[in-house]
């Protein structure tokens, strides 16, 4: 038959507009944007500032140490909330049905969400870092700031998969509850708010296996604090968790596909 000419929209502008739309969707919901940008700063103000200059390790002040904690908390927070809640809400409103009938490839949708989440995560650091510098008096080498930022951004990727999995497994109304029930306790248990030594002993015994623990260690190591094991081990565990979360997300996505679109 005749030559099939391919008439499709080009992907670059599609991805750009989709990403912009994803950003606006999050930005215009203060419950998400304000919380993501200012909650870590607020925690830093309450917990970090008072004893910021106190040295907890020979070369590390509490201010710097807690900056590492909050950078990890802030970034993982964005990943889990932006993905988990937006995916669950969009499923609840059946936005995915209309999207599926359009010629937009699903990969563009996924990619735009990832880019938006990473951008938002970077924004939270852009608020947190100057705050720690000015209000907390944290002084670090330029290279340390850069290392911390790039580590937490890269290390946040497994949590994108976790957020995605939660978004597909929970309903639009339960997503927030599920996330708070999982995320806050593990953030505490991983020592992001208080040193682990202050936690009940049974929590201390499971803490070293939590994903946020490994992620936290990357942050603490970046600011020069001593951590258990090597950074390489932390990365490996985090990567393994990433693969696991990704598989769960994929399974949940496929399950949804076979229910809704078969």
């Amino acid at each position, binding site marked *: 038959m005749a030559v*099939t000419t*391919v*008439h*499709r*929209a080009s992907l670059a*502008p*599609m991805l*750009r*507009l*989709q990403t*912009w*739309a994803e950003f*606006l*969707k999050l930005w*215009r*919901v203060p419950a998400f944007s304000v919380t993501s940008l200012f909650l870590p700063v607020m925690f830093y103000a309450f917990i970090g500032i008072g004893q910021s200059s106190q040295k907890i390790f020979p070369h590390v002040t509490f201010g710097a140490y807690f900056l590492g904690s909050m950078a990890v908390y802030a970034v993982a927070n964005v990943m889990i909330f932006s993905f988990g809640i937006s995916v669950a809400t*969009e499923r609840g*409103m*059946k*936005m995915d*049905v*209309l999207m*599926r*009938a*359009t*010629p*937009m*490839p699903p990969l563009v949708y996924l990619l735009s969400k990832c880019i938006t989440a990473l951008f938002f995560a970077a924004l939270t650091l852009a608020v947190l870092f100057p705050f720690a510098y000015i209000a907390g008096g944290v002084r670090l080498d330029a290279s340390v700031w850069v290392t911390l930022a790039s580590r937490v951004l890269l290390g946040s990727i497994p949590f994108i998969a976790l957020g995605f999995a939660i978004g597909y497994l929970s309903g639009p109304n339960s997503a927030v509850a599920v996330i708070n029930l999982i995320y806050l306790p593990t953030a505490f248990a991983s020592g992001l708010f208080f040193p682990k030594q202050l936690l009940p002993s049974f929590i201390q015994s499971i803490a070293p296996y939590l994903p946020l623990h490994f992620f936290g260690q990357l942050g603490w190591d970046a600011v020069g604090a001593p951590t258990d094991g090597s950074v390489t081990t932390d990365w490996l565990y985090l990567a393994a968790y990433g693969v696991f979360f990704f598989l769960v997300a994929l399974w949940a996505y496929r399950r949804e596909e076979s229910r809704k*679109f*078969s």
Partner: protein
Amino acid sequence: MPPAAQLIDATKKYGAVEALKGISLDIEVGEVVAMLGPNGAGKTTSISLLLGLRKPTTGKALLLGLKPDDLNARSRVGVMLQESGIPSMLKVREIVDLFRSYYPKPMTRDRAIAMAGLEEKSNALVKELSGGQQQRLYFALAVCGDPDVLFLDEPTVGMDVEGRRSFIERIAEFIQMGRTVVLTTHYLEEADQLAKRVIVIDRGMVIADASPQEIKSRVAGKRVRFAAAALTEKDLEGLPVTASTIVQNTVQLLTNQPEAVLRELFRRGIEISDLEVSGADLEDAFISLTTHKATG
């Protein structure tokens, strides 16, 4: 040129429920077709198969000669679905621009918004729109890609009379552009106003496929109900009715000529009581179509 949309012996089961019991239909390029049927008849399922949102249990669905989930096919198709959501925190112009970016040769943003009559709401957030305005926004999203084939699933559902009238004018305006349009509705009137061809679907099967005029002539407009003692089917023979049922002493007739039916009943000297003549609803209309088919 392959048909714009095609179902070939398509069946669809949802668990034990047989939503489509084997439908074949060809919709040619340039046709304006209405799929008419009561709720649960299988209209939305048919559309879902044609759009690749659902897969047929057996048989085949083709869109512009391609598999319905082929992005080359979808790039030429615009869709308005029932009960689908759009992000409430985007502005009208933003979401129209987003959907335009999905298509290779979209119309301008202003044109798409104007076709839906939303010029004054261009800067409003989706969540600020009324139900009718949201429905029109869905229409703007469906046409903004300047599609060759437009699918509208129950486009006027939930609209008031005035809203429906003006919305039908907007759809008619798009039809003027000479594109293929497939719409589902449960209003015969709407099908008549827009389409050149009406496919009637009932209980998962095509029970009629004809021009709106022909369908109208076959569908009973009135329901005549009365009580009469010891009446049999034989007494009703030769009456201009499309369907009749006798349950105990109650007789129900579907007809387009209630006066003629009554005149004939009186002429035959049949004693009737509790006479009631009312407009037939869609369910009645379908009964008359199905029985029409059954009796040839």
